[in-house]
């Protein structure tokens, strides 16, 4: 997984944790170093005081120099960490007592202010404090160098204990950082999630610009999204306008052609010409039908974007459609029967859309009905719905699913001999989806298909 993909949240958490870990380690070393320095300074002060005190007690006597090492001083020096103790006292150039080979300071101290240095000695490393003073032996001044060295086990123990605390603190800091960074990563991504939810909740035709409040950092993303949506909306409406225009432009000349063909049919005595003219008229009719379906479809798409909800009597609408299709049915010798009483079937919706849906249902039923059969329109209501059921005695669906048939320009597998655009059912399902109704196609056991359309009762 490269940096370009993967989880942003995981990356953010990881980065926060790395920062926390670095800070924790830094904290540990800082405290450790400070503790070590503090412990060293304290120990140095004690050691220096002890050395100075020993040097101060040096006295010149007639026999030479009197040195009085204080028991309690030495006792105390070892108290902190049971440290080992070494000392050396030089008078002039010779060591008078202590450890002859204790390392000397690089620079001889010049006063009773202690000089501190670390040096290896015997099997260990020691911290030495050295002071110097001058005493008068006889008549001549003699320089005296007093050195006391100690191991720093006590200092190491103190610094170690503090470092352990620091380590614990650092670890605690890190442990605390884990849930905090998870939390903060979560809260940072909340606006993104909310935006995604808001966009995801939109219906299939909702192409409005996104107005969801978002943090500043997301503004470019939202702007880009809105730009994209508006381009999409423009392209869609252009296409739809184009289709509607095209259909309209085709339909008008087609009716002229049809009229002319009918006139020619009437005037012609030649049987062969008449047959050709008839088939021409049928072709022109189908083309006109397709063109009006395209127009219907464009109209449905346009109007379902801007629904005009008014009260509609679906029963009345169905009867009107049946009446309009009367001549067509008669021509095909199909009897169109409306079942159900005259009670109104009230619903809310766009009357033009409802009419388009009903018209396509009935048109389909008639189109696929063989001659001398019935198309039956049944009106009913119940369960809070008003229902229209259109049944034919045609060839059925041959197992094709409703989802397939409802797709644009998709037609059943058994209709190649019938002219059609495949837009009829698409229009119906889109209208019903826009109005919040239900649509169901079913094959009858006796042959033929029933289309059930129901809309919420008002």
């Amino acid at each position, binding site marked *: 997984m490269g940096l370009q993909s993967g989880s942003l949240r995981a990356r953010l958490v990881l980065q926060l944790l790395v920062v926390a870990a670095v800070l924790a380690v830094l904290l540990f070393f800082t405290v450790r170093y400070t503790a070590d320095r503090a412990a060293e300074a304290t120990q140095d002060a004690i050691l220096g005081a002890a050395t100075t005190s020993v040097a101060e007690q040096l006295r010149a006597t007639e026999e030479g120099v*009197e*040195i*009085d*090492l*204080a*028991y*309690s001083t*030495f*006792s105390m*020096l*070892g*108290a902190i960490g*049971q*440290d*080992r*103790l*070494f000392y050396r006292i030089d008078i002039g150039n010779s060591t*008078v*007592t*202590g450890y002859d080979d204790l390392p000397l300071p690089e620079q001889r101290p010049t006063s009773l202010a202690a000089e501190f240095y670390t040096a290896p000695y*015997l*099997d*260990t490393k020691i911290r030495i404090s050295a002071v110097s003073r001058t005493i008068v032996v006889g008549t001549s001044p003699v320089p005296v160098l007093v050195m006391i060295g100690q191991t720093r*086990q006590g200092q190491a123990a103190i610094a170690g204990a503090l470092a352990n605390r620091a380590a614990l603190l650092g670890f605690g800091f890190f442990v605390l950082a884990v849930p905090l960074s998870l939390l903060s990563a979560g809260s940072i991504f909340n606006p993104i999630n909310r935006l995604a939810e808001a966009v995801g909740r939109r219906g299939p035709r909702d192409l409005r610009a996104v107005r969801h409040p978002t943090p500043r950092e997301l503004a470019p993303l939202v702007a880009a999204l809105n730009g994209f949506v508006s381009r999409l909306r423009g392209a869609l409406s252009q296409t739809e306008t184009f289709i509607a225009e095209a259909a309209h432009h085709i339909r008008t000349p087609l009716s002229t052609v049809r009229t002319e063909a009918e006139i020619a049919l009437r005037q012609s005595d030649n049987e062969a010409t008449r047959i050709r003219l008839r088939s021409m008229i049928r072709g022109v009719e189908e083309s006109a039908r397709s063109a009006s379906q395209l127009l219907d479809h464009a109209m449905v798409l346009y109007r379902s974007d801007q629904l005009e909800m008014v009260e509609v009597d679906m029963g009345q609408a169905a009867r009107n459609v049946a009446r309009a299709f009367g001549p067509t049915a008669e021509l095909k010798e199909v009897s169109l029967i409306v079942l159900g009483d005259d009670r109104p079937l009230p619903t809310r919706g766009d009357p033009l859309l409802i009419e388009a849906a009903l018209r396509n249902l009935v048109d389909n039923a008639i189109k696929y009905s063989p001659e001398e059969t019935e198309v039956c329109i049944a009106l009913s209501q119940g369960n809070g719905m008003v229902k229209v059921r259109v049944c034919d005695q045609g060839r059925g669906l041959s197992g094709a699913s409703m989802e397939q048939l409802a797709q644009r320009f998709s037609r059943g597998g058994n209709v190649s001999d019938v002219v059609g655009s495949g837009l009829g059912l698409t229009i119906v399902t889109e209208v019903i989806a826009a109005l919040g109704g239900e649509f169901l196609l079913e094959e009858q056991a006796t042959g033929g298909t029933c289309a059930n359309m129901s809309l919420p009762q008002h």
Partner: protein
Amino acid sequence: MRQYVIAAALMCCATRVEAYEIEDERLFGPPNMPVISVLSTTDTDVFAPVIEAFLAAHPDHALRYVAASSQEVFRAMRDEDAQFDLVISSAMDLQMKLANDGFAAPIVSAQTQALPPWTKWRDRLFGFALEPVVLMASKKAMQGLVLPRTRRDLIDLLRANPDRFNGRIATYDPNISGAGYLFATQDARQTDAFWRLAEVMGRLNAQLYCCSGEMITGLENNELALAYNIVGSYAFTRVQGSDDLVVIELEDFTVALVRTAFVPRNAERPQMGAELLDFMLSKTDGQTTRSGGAALLPREQAALPPHVRPIRLDPGLLVYLDRIKRANFLAEWNAAMTQP
């Protein structure tokens, strides 16, 4: 070239001649087993029961026990690179110096960890027995006198009866005895009365000894009336079964000595030395019992009677080992002892 070889041989012999002096050497256990070597200031007979118990638990080892004076033990370790697996001494100052100067190996075991902090120094030097340093008297010699309870009592007693005590009071000679030097310096550190006592003893021609045992023998033989600064383990052992001897713990203060042991860094079998140390420490079960005269170490210093002052294991002990300090102290002591 030849001369060098001879010189080297001579030097070798010279070192041999100068080698530390031992008082006793005994091998315990089966002779053909790996030998654990122990150098100690404790008399062999006193320590024998511990050795036998240890060997009973370790039948696959033998133990060579070398007894020497504390000065000799110190010399053996510091100057002569003698190889031992455990070094036991009553001279805390010398042991402390050896440990401070890096002659002791670190030992970490459950037993040593469990020791109360005041009875050990780092992980090098471990105390295994506490012994008060006491005054002993012969009842016969003290007839008609009240036994002293403090040093002041003792000084008064000696001053009041010079005839009875002349030449019949004994103490360690700090010039030759490491333990005697330690006791004297600790006394001097505790109280100024020590120097007065020394002067009184010097005037009474005090007898100076190397060892506790010989002083007690002197008391038993009626050569002595009082012996000052006797190691507790000897005193309490010898007073048993004697109706003449009496042990007195002076109430102003009684210095208590911690017998210490360490495993030397150059030990041949440090593991076995550490095991013997553990064995000795395991007897320290926190009760102040006086088995064999030595008090085992209590967990808390506060559990001791108030007049008992254990010598602390700390670098303060190094102070009196300083050559100038030592020379000054001994000069002072000798001046007090030899009076016209």
